[in-house]
């Protein structure tokens, strides 16, 4: 039997980056806020202790702090003609779990999307005509502009203490920064990280080729910093345990370092962990949410009534919760109608591995967002006319770690075991680096999310089904980028290089990227979007949905900077809504 709890002003589903920011900003205005998180509470000293945090086997290989597939996973297939099967073990992407969410285990690359990314459809149409767009695409403009989001990007960067070098302050190009970035009001809060030997070579080589390298913006911060909330962070020590790990140094921006210390002191805030929200409840008219239902650690069901429901889980699980709650019309690729699950997108990875005759890259001295990038081939910073594809990539030289279970590259043709393998591993470890291209993925009619007809979670609810493959446009783009990477790798002085192309169907096995986007996209038209420009549900106006699930398609960048900016952008709208409830966009 479901028992009803006393009403709250706001219920938040999931206590990661977006949930913690909203919880703090709303509870400090005196509102009663409860955050319901299905994973455990996590804190630096207790869960990412310096004596035990640098454990590659436990965290990177066995996935200790990630969502356990046993609790929830997805099914996947490459196209609608196939039968989806469950992702039994995470590979291609690694969803977070627990307080802090994916903000605990990220690398920390904190980008702003470019002004053109927000109006990609209009921009490409104006410059190249309709013919540039790939078959069956669903590319659409964002309902917000870069200029509108700029103050909110700034807020998130100052919350997280991001280390970087501005390339464009109020329209004036800054030497050493990214000249392609949109105008920003001021520089980053902290100076860029120190770079390693590979980045030194890359900077020279890329500049020589006419590119514009710059240190990439990093949430592993370069100097001590206290953010506007009063939370303090310590300088990064380049320990090389960022992605897949919690930071024991208080150096990586996360809800733990940047928000929770002040959030928990708000007397009107409460977090309930190890409780899984199973449904957003709707009133009889289907147009108002009455709160959420959740299952606690003992398996008991509870109803938490609230005036506003903020859906702040990981992008994929936001979409599933909407589908399970009946909020918004589910997408159907056959009729090309419906919106929930539509426009799922991802990220491409390609590049060149560079083997040097003699070098000591010391790749273990690293950080998740240490690296130098060039944006000359990102977005529409170059003429797409001759290439026939939409999108672009950041070209990067980076070392995020030298952890040897997963990082022990050998040249092609080396056996996988035996004395020859052992010798190759030893000889290569210090002499290998790479140039990588992280690229955009457009949205398509047949890349989507819906509920699986066969497989269920332990509570008996259907798993979500992911139907996804890279399309010709993305392959063309990523493989062209791989050749650009190879040019730079050769110019860096590599003795030999190996080009890594995007070939074969997308596979769940090798790790690729935890940048799953779309499925509950924001837009100007309820026929092609789940949310309006304020991340408010078109159908249920007291439901707001945060996260990268709102991206209409993905850009050639990591998503977190834009997720943070959208959260602050939506916060202003939520405050407006609380004063005067109702749809914030009238059609």
């Amino acid at each position, binding site marked *: 039997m479901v028992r009803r709890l006393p009403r709250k002003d706001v219920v938040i589903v999931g206590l990661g980056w977006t949930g913690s920011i909203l919880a703090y900003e709303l509870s400090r205005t005196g509102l009663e806020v409860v955050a*319901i998180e299905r994973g*455990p*509470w996590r*804190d*630096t*000293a*207790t869960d990412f202790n310096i004596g*035990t945090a*640098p*454990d*590659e*086997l436990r965290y990177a*290989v*066995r996935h200790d702090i990630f969502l*356990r*597939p*046993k609790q929830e996973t997805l099914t996947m*297939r*490459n196209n609608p003609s196939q*039968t989806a*099967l469950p*992702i*039994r073990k995470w590979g291609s992407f690694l969803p977070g779990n627990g307080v802090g969410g994916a903000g605990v285990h990220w690398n920390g690359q904190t980008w702003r999307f470019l002004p053109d990314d927000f109006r990609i459809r209009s921009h490409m149409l104006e410059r190249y005509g309709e013919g540039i767009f790939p078959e069956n695409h669903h590319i659409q403009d964002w309902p917000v502009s870069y200029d509108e989001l700029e103050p909110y990007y700034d807020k998130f960067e100052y919350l997280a203490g991001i280390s970087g070098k501005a390339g464009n302050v109020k329209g004036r190009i800054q030497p050493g920064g990214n000249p392609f970035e949109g105008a920003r009001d001021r520089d980053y809060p902290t100076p860029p990280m120190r*770079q390693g*030997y590979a980045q030194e070579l890359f900077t020279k080589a890329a500049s020589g080729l006419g590119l514009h390298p710059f240190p990439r913006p990093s949430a592993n911060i370069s100097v001590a910093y206290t953010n506007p909330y009063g939370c303090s962070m310590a300088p990064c*020590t*380049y*320990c090389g345990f960022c992605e897949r790990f919690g930071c024991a140094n208080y150096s990586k921006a996360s809800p733990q370092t940047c928000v*929770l*210390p002040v959030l*928990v*002191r708000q*007397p009107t805030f*409460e*977090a*309930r962990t*190890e*409780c899984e929200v199973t449904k957003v409840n709707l009133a009889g008219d289907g147009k108002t949410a009455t709160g959420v239902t959740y299952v*606690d*650690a*003992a398996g*008991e069901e*509870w109803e938490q009534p609230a005036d506003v429901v903020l859906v702040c889980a990981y992008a994929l699980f936001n979409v599933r919760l909407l589908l399970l709650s009946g909020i918004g019309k589910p997408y159907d690729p056959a009729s090309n109608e419906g919106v929930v699950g539509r426009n799922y997108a991802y990220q491409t990875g390609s590049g060149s591995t560079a083997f040097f005759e003699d070098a*000591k890259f*010391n790749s*273990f*001295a690293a950080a998740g967002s240490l690296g130098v990038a060039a944006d000359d081939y990102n977005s529409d910073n170059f003429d797409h006319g001759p290439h026939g594809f939409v999108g672009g990539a950041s070209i990067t030289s980076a070392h995020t770690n030298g952890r*040897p*279970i997963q990082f*022990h590259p050998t040249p092609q043709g080396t056996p*996988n*075991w*035996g004395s020859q393998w*052992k*010798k190759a591993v*030893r000889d290569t*470890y210090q002499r290998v680096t790479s140039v990588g291209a992280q690229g955009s993925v457009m949205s398509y009619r047949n890349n989507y999310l819906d509920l699986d007809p066969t497989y269920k979670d332990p509570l008996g609810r259907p798993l979500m089904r992911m139907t996804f493959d890279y399309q010709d446009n993305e392959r063309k783009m990523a493989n062209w980028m791989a050749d650009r990477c190879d040019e730079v790798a050769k110019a860096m002085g590599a003795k030999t290089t190996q080009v890594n192309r995007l070939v074969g169907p997308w*596979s*769940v*096995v090798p790790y690729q990227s935890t940048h799953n986007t779309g499925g509950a996209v924001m837009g100007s038209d309820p026929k092609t979007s789940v949310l309006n420009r304020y991340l408010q549900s078109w159908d249920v106006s007291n439901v707001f949905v945060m996260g990268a699930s709102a991206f209409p398609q993905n850009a050639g960048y990591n998503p977190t900077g834009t997720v943070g900016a959208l959260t602050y952008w939506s916060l202003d709208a939520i405050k407006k809504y609380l004063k005067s409830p109702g749809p914030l966009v009238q059609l």
Partner: protein
Amino acid sequence: MKHSGSRSPRHPGHLTRRSLLASAALLITTGGTRARVVTKVLPWDPNEAYPVVPVKPGGYLFFSAAEAAAVDAIVDRLIPTDELGPGAKDSGVTTFIDRQLMGPFGGHDWLYMQGPFAAAPLPSQGLQSSLTPRQQYRQGLAALESYCKTSFGGRDFVQLNADEQDKLLAGMEKGEVTLPNFSSKMLFAAIHANTLEGYFADPIYGGNRDMAGWKLVGFPGVRYDYRDVIEKPNQAYTLPPVGMQGRPAWGAR
């Protein structure tokens, strides 16, 4: 009210300290809901809540003597002891695998193991077998033993010479060897993956003894502060590696 723990305890048997933490200050019930409720104070405590229990070498918990001997022989070919230093067998990798099989990894405890299991999954769909690592080792090693006895005149894997072992392993790697009722490719993949893990994981798990794997490549372990290295690009790192329990020169633990 007693803290009920999470639905899938992270380290069964090691919940005590975290449970204590929870019940002392943090488990406030809201109308009876069994949630861990955090409000007004940041819950933290010095030191790791779920520390790894260091593996004590000696004996086997999962493997029989014959299985352990076969695994010893296999991992010794995968990463041999040679002029570059100790290999997998001499670094304790068999003990590492034995202890891993006894933990949550051995039962795929954290993975999605509900059926139906597809007969012909796409390669892009990854792991689709219902066999846990414990089952893979038990059934796979038995199948290998039986195959060897039949194909090599009554000898088992341990009794083959190095060339015979290498040839057989190469065939298993490609799936060209047909073991009775077991995929040779699956057995090879399991042992190969676990061997790399054991050779390069922190010595606390029983492998990588004396940090042989880390010394091979020059990984300094868990020093956690390389600001000095980043200041000196392209220079050799000369300090010895350190594990989570320190290093031998600091005294036996």
